[in-house]
């Protein structure tokens, strides 16, 4: 039966892609029983992949991460439809601490370091679920990634610069030994040089530490540079997705997210042919 038309020997069959490590299936999130922030979103994050989730303000990116971390209930949000799976099992009913323990960790938007706690104490909190013997080794790894933090261990986090706080927020998340690390707009408000440093670490996390990364960004250029695959979210829907390099080359993406202007103000969803392009892209 399977004779002709096979891909050349040694190549994986395209349709038999590995089961995703983390998967959102037809997710719908409603806040306050009225505001539909995310509708019918499906996206998958393969093991050891870096997936970029792009979109402008209010698109629903952070909402998806809150759903992933089990935090919706703190804001009167409810996952009204669909499911979130990790290694094939549904996780949307798990409590936040159970999710962290199973390796699903996020660096929240705006860094959210504990301002009154020192760098060391912030890192200790990151490792809250994994106390004990390995703490020193993990600290050393974080300090190796961010030597700046090693110099400021006793400093109160609230007085550090934005870039240092972002490093601390990432280091803190790493202390819990994540399997999937989601980062919510890590470049927000940082100088280009600092962004370089942060993105350098993100690449190392995948290459050297084998992490799976879900990268939420408005800064599409940076994110698509490091990502393997990208999704574009608008008004709570995925409007486009595809391999990162193709997305970066896509005319509409270039126009709306990379600041390569073509004509007047338009939404990506208004672009007639986006569906055809989507098919072409994926």
């Amino acid at each position, binding site marked *: 039966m399977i004779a002709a038309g096979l891909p050349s020997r040694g190549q994986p069959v395209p349709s038999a892609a590995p089961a995703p490590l983390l998967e959102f299936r037809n997710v719908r999130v409603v806040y306050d029983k009225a505001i539909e922030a995310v509708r019918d979103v499906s996206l998958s994050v393969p093991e050891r992949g870096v997936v970029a989730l792009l979109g402008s303000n209010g698109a629903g990116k952070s909402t998806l991460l809150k759903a992933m*971390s089990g935090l919706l209930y703190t804001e009167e949000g409810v996952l009204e439809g669909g499911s979130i799976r990790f290694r094939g099992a549904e996780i949307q009913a798990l409590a936040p*601490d159970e999710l962290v*323990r199973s390796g699903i960790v996020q660096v*929240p938007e705006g860094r*959210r370091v*504990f301002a009154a706690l020192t760098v060391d104490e912030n890192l200790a*909190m990151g490792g*809250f679920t994994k106390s004990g013997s390995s703490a020193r080794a993990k600290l050393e790894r974080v300090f190796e990634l961010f030597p700046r933090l090693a110099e400021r261990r006793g400093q109160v986090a609230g007085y550090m610069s934005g870039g240092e706080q972002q490093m601390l927020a990432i280091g803190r998340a790493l202390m819990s030994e994540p399997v999937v690390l989601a980062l919510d707009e890590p470049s927000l408000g940082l100088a280009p040089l600092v962004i370089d440093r942060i993105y350098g670490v993100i690449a190392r996390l995948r290459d050297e530490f084998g992490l799976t990364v879900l990268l939420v960004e408005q800064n599409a250029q940076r994110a698509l540079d490091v990502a393997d695959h990208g999704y574009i979210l608008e008004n709570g829907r995925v409007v486009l997705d595809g391999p990162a390099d193709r997305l970066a080359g896509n005319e509409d993406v270039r126009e709306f997210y990379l600041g390569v202007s073509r004509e007047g103000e338009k939404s990506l969803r208004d672009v007639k042919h986006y569906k055809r392009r989507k098919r072409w892209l994926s």
Partner: protein
Amino acid sequence: MRFFLELALSGLAVGAVYGLVAMGFAVIYKATGLVNFAQGELTMIIAYIAWTIQTNLTGNVAVVTVGALGAALLLGLAIERVVMRPMLGEPVFATVMVTIALAVILRSSINFIWDAYPHGLDLGVGRSVVRAGAVGIRTGQIAVVATLLAMLAGFTLFFRYSRFGIAMRAVAADDRTALLMGVSTGRVHAAAWAASAVISGIAGIFFAVSYDLSPTMFQLGLKSFPATILGGLDAVIGSGLGGVIIGVAENLAGGYLGSGTKEVAGFVLIIVILMVRPFGLFGQRDIERV
């Protein structure tokens, strides 16, 4: 001079009782953002439980203390689990009302379970007088001050070095982000209620041994709440010190300015200090959440 010393020393002792109860307020506020208006009632109930053990079982001071504080621990956990946890996420106003209702229930339970008469809690200790020069002080008073100091030291170390202590500070600062670290805020709340009930229970036992036991003892809560405001509602250590300041100020005012001023001295002090430091002497967080 002798008069002054005597006033100051007994003020110190009663202030240590206020301080312990005030620490109870602060522990719950720090962890949950709530003022527990049943703190004085909790203090009173534990003292009554101690008295029950003493009259029915044994007067052995160790047994009575361990028994009553064990009961305090369970009572704190039970209140958190049964009454407070279902209120999680509800408006602060509603939740505070629940603690007020709890206060009324606990207060009247004294009359249901025990009776309306004053009793002495005699554990065979604490009543002998130690003389230092011209002034005398009871051993119970020395013990309560020593206990407060030990608690202050213990909590300082706990908040600075223990994983759970740091987690409590993290929850107080930003509970959503603490959730992202895998800190179970439910567990932190439960521990805070248990710890708070135990600290208050210690205060209640000391108070009952030094003075007596009566259904009006819940007023210790009213006396101690200003201490926690003075020290800082979110400052556990500060609240302990606030109690001492108020106890001493009250006694000195009562001794030198007439007994009528004793009741108001603490509050005058609070008004003055809050005008200068609105979050209390050691407080950090604004107290909008109350």
